[in-house]
């Protein structure tokens, strides 16, 4: 109970305090990118960590959110800020329809099915050049709230930070709700969960839809933050990155997803000085983290701290 609030308080404190240490405005953008990415990762954590269902197509939902936000104003005449929840609704609807058959598959078969879904989304984004702008991507209109145009890294920092805080709060509550316990039960054993009366299919589908909504909201925010979207946002590599974030941070841990996202967004930024060695070092670090903190950074460090009391 208190651990939940401690996590939230800590995250809120980090969001509130770190801007004091930013040497330049550029850092607001990097941090905003972390919060957005973390929001998508937290969604995947609900699906993978809590419900135990793998997805190699999470970025597909990020892409749906990003492109709905980018294209809605042009094709539907809607305000760009309305397109963000619209993107979430579209993603939820798609997840509901796609999830029903897909979630009957298990383990690696589910992985390849979600992978296929992500590929389909990317393919549409790349090939329907007339609508999506194709591989080069498309511009995103600026958002305005009551005449105030949202721009600048600092505004986005607070908006995305707030969204992440809200997302983590919901995820933590879900984990400790009856629904979350049902997910934990079916994660351990679907047969056992069914035996005690849990509607396994319904709970899995719900987790899938919730994860999709997280992804789509993150995608919409990402589009607004960058002012530009490309199909890469929905690509296979992006999906793999989200999975890596969740696992490296700690599969069973909501704050772990945030830490994993921060790590994977920061590494390329921090290692630019390595130039061509950057990729090799990132790969090496991922391996080292997983070898030495095999249950993930957050649970791993927590276990280490518990072992040697201060």
């Amino acid at each position, binding site marked *: 109970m208190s651990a939940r609030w401690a996590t939230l308080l800590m995250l809120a404190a980090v969001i509130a305090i770190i801007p004091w240490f930013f040497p330049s405005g550029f850092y607001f953008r990097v941090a905003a990118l972390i919060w957005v990415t973390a929001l998508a990762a937290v969604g995947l954590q609900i699906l993978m960590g809590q419900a135990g269902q793998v997805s190699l197509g999470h970025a597909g939902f990020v892409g749906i959110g990003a492109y709905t936000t980018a294209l809605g104003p042009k094709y539907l005449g809607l305000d760009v800020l309305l397109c963000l929840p619209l993107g979430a609704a579209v993603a939820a609807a798609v997840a509901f329809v796609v999830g029903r058959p897909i979630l009957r598959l298990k383990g690696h078969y589910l992985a390849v099915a979600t992978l296929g879904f992500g590929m*389909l989304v990317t393919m549409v984004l790349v090939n329907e050049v007339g609508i999506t702008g194709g591989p080069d991507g498309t511009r995103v209109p600026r958002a305005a709230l009551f005449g105030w145009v949202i721009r600048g890294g600092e505004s986005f920092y607070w908006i995305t930070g707030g969204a992440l805080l809200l997302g983590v709060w919901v995820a933590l509550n879900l984990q400790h709700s009856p629904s979350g316990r049902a997910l934990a039960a079916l994660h351990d054993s679907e047969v056992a969960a069914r035996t005690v009366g849990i509607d396994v299919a319904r709970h899995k589908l719900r987790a899938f839809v919730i994860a999709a909504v997280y992804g789509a909201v993150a995608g919409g925010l990402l589009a607004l933050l960058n002012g530009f979207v490309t199909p890469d946002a929905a690509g*296979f590599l992006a999906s*793999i990155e989200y999975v890596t974030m969740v696992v490296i941070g700690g599969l069973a841990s909501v704050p772990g997803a945030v830490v994993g996202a921060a790590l994977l967004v920061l590494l390329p930024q921090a290692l630019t000085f390595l130039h061509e060695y950057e990729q090799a070092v990132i790969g090496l670090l991922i391996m080292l983290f*997983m070898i030495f903190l095999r249950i993930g950074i957050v649970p791993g460090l927590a276990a280490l701290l518990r072992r040697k009391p201060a």
Partner: protein
Amino acid sequence: MAGHIMTAELLQFLVSGLTVGAVYALVALGFTLIYNASDVVNFAQGEFVMLGGMVTVFVHAAGLALPLAAAAAIIVAVAAGLLLHRLAIEPARGASAVTLIIITIGASIFLRGVAQIVFDKRFHQLPAFSGNDPILLGGAAILPQSFWVLGGAVLVFTALFLFLERTLLGKAVLATAANRLAARLVGVDTSFVLALSFGLSAAIGALGGILITPITLTSFDVGTLLALKGFAAAMLGGMGSPLGAVAGGLLLGLLESFAAGTISSAYKDAVAFIVILGVLFAMPQGLFGRRSVERV
């Protein structure tokens, strides 16, 4: 689309589909071998294919004859596979499958990163092994290299089959796949089997890369897409079944080739994936997969 498809066209699609499919099958076989020994889906499998092509290109360019360059590439890939097992998988022994999978993802990023330092970021080609004059067969023009790919793949499939069915070591590999604990109890060194699987997978992947490079070009980042296709092929066939890996790979290649020829080349991958999804909905264990029962 014309009203009817000529037999020549059909033959053309068939051969090009089988050629690409053979490479997918080799990648899928690599996945299967490692998966059977460890439950790990090795996402670095595509990098072995990349190493096969790239090392051959660069060693050949340095003046070595093509067969020697190819041998060097296989040695490099096998070394990479064994090191991956020794330095990254073995130290994490006992970790969950998903942790090990992320390690292989890290390894694939690492290998790609090293490849772009050691080699470069450009596309490269190898000369075709027996020239580029197409062979006319039933009205279809077939590249001689296609026969090299198909022949090489058949050779690998046969050799692997004989190894698994006819040798004691091969039976140890099969025993490990069937039940790791039981295999260990009857004296199989499962850790050695795992190392062997990594070495074999790397060699098979590298061979695929060497054979296909004259047709499709290679670069430091070709591994990602091949890993993805190989994984899909392995799942289509049924994870853990070598026969399924071969069937899945060939089927995936054929699907793509016929979809590109008759429906849309932009959406050939989409057609392939929709068929895979359809198969999995009907047969959730893939075409040749074992039905598994969840134990509580």
